[in-house]
């Protein structure tokens, strides 16, 4: 985040392009993240969403929570639809059929719609270099359909399709590193963000939108319903994810890694995990294993940071 950023709460635009009256769960971290992103994006934007929490809570016929142009089609094709819109606007402006103007195209999808079913479309759009921003709202499971595991579900988390039981510790694979996969496409801007650090998130979204070419932002969205935590801890848990090194905030600008927040010492992962019911069943050994792996991943990230 810029040292001299003046994003003080009262200076943030009062306009809510993601209108209240949406049907998100009480304390929804994703709704907060979308709201903040919309503040950073302004009015000259076209939003494309995937099927998922954000689409369902904001678009029950005949209502819409969106005060900007918005389109939803299917689950796995957000990046492809965004590609089509980008191409359509580009050619219409070039042919003089509409006035030339800066319109940001922002694709928004969940972790399922990004790292699982939507991975192909995302990879294709990134490779083709379309000028758009892709925001992944990661609540670490298929929350909208009732908390099923995705490839973004963290190791040891209990979900309905990877439940904890006598024979299982829950999710048995490590969370897929989407920012790394996206960075491998050599796009100009990749970032991770959290609504618990709202000004950092807003400045990253603004930066991503302003980038020429594809940009990707991965936002950790705390989900009290799915993570089984009290509704008022959304922001606190999001902060702990960053402070424990589980979800570090960084940017990759043209291949260069920049850490957004560094901590002299990371908090132990138990601080984060003990607040959430989805990790309640884990034994001390497993948590030790997780701590070890988090340390390793964080060290790998630190090596890349300039």
């Amino acid at each position, binding site marked *: 985040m810029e040292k001299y950023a003046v994003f003080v709460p009262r200076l943030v635009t009062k306009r809510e392009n993601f209108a209240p009256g949406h049907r998100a769960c009480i304390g929804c971290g994703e709704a907060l993240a979308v709201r903040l992103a919309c503040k950073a994006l302004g009015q000259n934007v076209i939003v494309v969403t995937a099927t998922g929490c954000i689409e369902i809570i904001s678009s*029950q016929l005949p209502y819409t929570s*969106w005060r900007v*142009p*918005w389109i939803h089609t*299917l689950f796995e094709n957000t990046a492809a639809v965004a590609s*089509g819109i980008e191409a359509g606007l580009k050619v219409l402006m070039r042919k003089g*059929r509409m006035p030339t103007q800066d319109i940001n195209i922002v694709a928004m999808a969940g972790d399922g719609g990004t790292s699982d079913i939507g991975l192909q479309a995302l990879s294709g759009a990134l490779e083709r270099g379309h000028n758009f921003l892709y925001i992944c709202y990661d609540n670490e499971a298929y929350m909208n359909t009732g908390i099923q595991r995705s490839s973004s579900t963290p190791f040891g988390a209990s979900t309905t399709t990877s439940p904890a039981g006598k024979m299982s510790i829950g999710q048995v694979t490590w969370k897929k590193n989407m920012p790394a996969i996206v960075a491998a496409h050599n796009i100009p801007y990749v970032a991770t963000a959290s609504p618990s650090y709202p000004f950092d998130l807003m400045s990253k979204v603004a930066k991503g939108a302003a980038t020429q070419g594809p940009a990707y932002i991965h936002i950790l969205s705390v989900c009290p319903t799915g993570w089984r935590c009290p509704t008022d801890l959304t922001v606190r848990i999001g902060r702990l994810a960053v402070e424990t090194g589980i979800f570090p905030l960084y940017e990759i600008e043209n291949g260069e890694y920049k850490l957004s927040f560094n901590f002299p010492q990371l908090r132990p992962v138990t601080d984060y995990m003990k607040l959430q019911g989805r990790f309640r069943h884990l034994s001390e050994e497993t948590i030790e294993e997780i701590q070890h792996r988090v340390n390793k991943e964080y060290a790998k990230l630190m090596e890349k940071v300039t």
Partner: protein
Amino acid sequence: MCQGVLDKSNNNDRGGGIIGRRVGIEVSLAIAEVVGLADADVVAAYPITPQTHIVEHLAELVANGELDAQYIPVESEHSAMSACLGASAAGARTFTATAGQGLELMHEVLYVASSMRLPVVMTVVNRALSSPLSVWGDHSDAMSVRDTGWIQIFVENGQEAVDNVLCAFRIAEDPRVLLPVMVHLDGFHLSHMIEPMLLPERDEVEKFLPKNDYPLPLRPDKPVAMGDFAPPIIYTETKKAQEINIRASKEVILQCWNEFGNSFHRYYHPVECYQCEDADVLLLTMGSFSETAMMAIDKMRQEGRGVGLLKLRLWRPFPFKEIRQAVKNAEVLIVLDRALSFGGPGGPVCSEIRSALHNEEKKPKVISFVGGLGGREITVAGFEYIVNRGIEISQTGSEQEFELFGVRE
């Protein structure tokens, strides 16, 4: 044989002056040429045999500056149609082409295109479906998308393909329609044929085809929300609206074909009759089989048989009125399908025709044949056999729902 130009042996009122320039090229390339003449804005392209020549030639036109369009080389057909949705929603004139498996891959997106009323134009080069893998032509892919809500037109030769792709843009983007349109042509038998065709000149196309003016595009100054979800209390109403719209589009299609005829001297109809006056036996075909069937009909007429050919051109919205009118004086109607509905009625087109005629007081006996699957040829002799066998079945009856023509037992 170039249908329509100076050919007076049919009763379709074609012929009478030549508009455009005469070319002798592969039909796929001609289709790409006409998409270029129509000044398409966005082409989303993914290769699949046998449509690839269309998207290849479009890439050439764009690369040489002959077509100013954004060419999106997508990574799958699902993304191809999705990109078309986006481009169309942004107000761009959008085109793509696919075949067989590609059409299946974009299946769910097709429903979205029609229910969201996005005027995408697509050429489907009909190809058989796996498994076993077959790149050759039949109508199974077309039949699998019957209910997707698209306007669907079948063509039988290169000239028809060129003309109907041009009409497709005009029909799709008409403010009274705003529905996606598929133009079906047979894989290899039509797509890869080098035929003499008349390509319209650019100024003639500009006169015929108005600019795309989608009424509610995605624009920051007038925000719209496209693709809300509908709970049970309202979903039925959205489907009724869609159904009313596609039925009403028939009127616009007929008008468009009529005006096309006035401009280019070739008239198209939902059902076309060939040598049907006083025919007690009618054969019905769709697609390029119609050409060979016409030769068989000619031969049988010379032998004094009272046979005629019906060519079904407008598949969706289904031309109930025209079908009922066309068959009302026939005793036997033999329908040749190029697709097979397993465990069901066999021939999908035949089952629709039977259903359309069910309540008519006077109707012919309808006999079902399925043939030409996976690119299998049917010769003139084959059609003669089908007609004769069809007449036989109408007299003796059959235990089977349909007969599979040409299979080695």
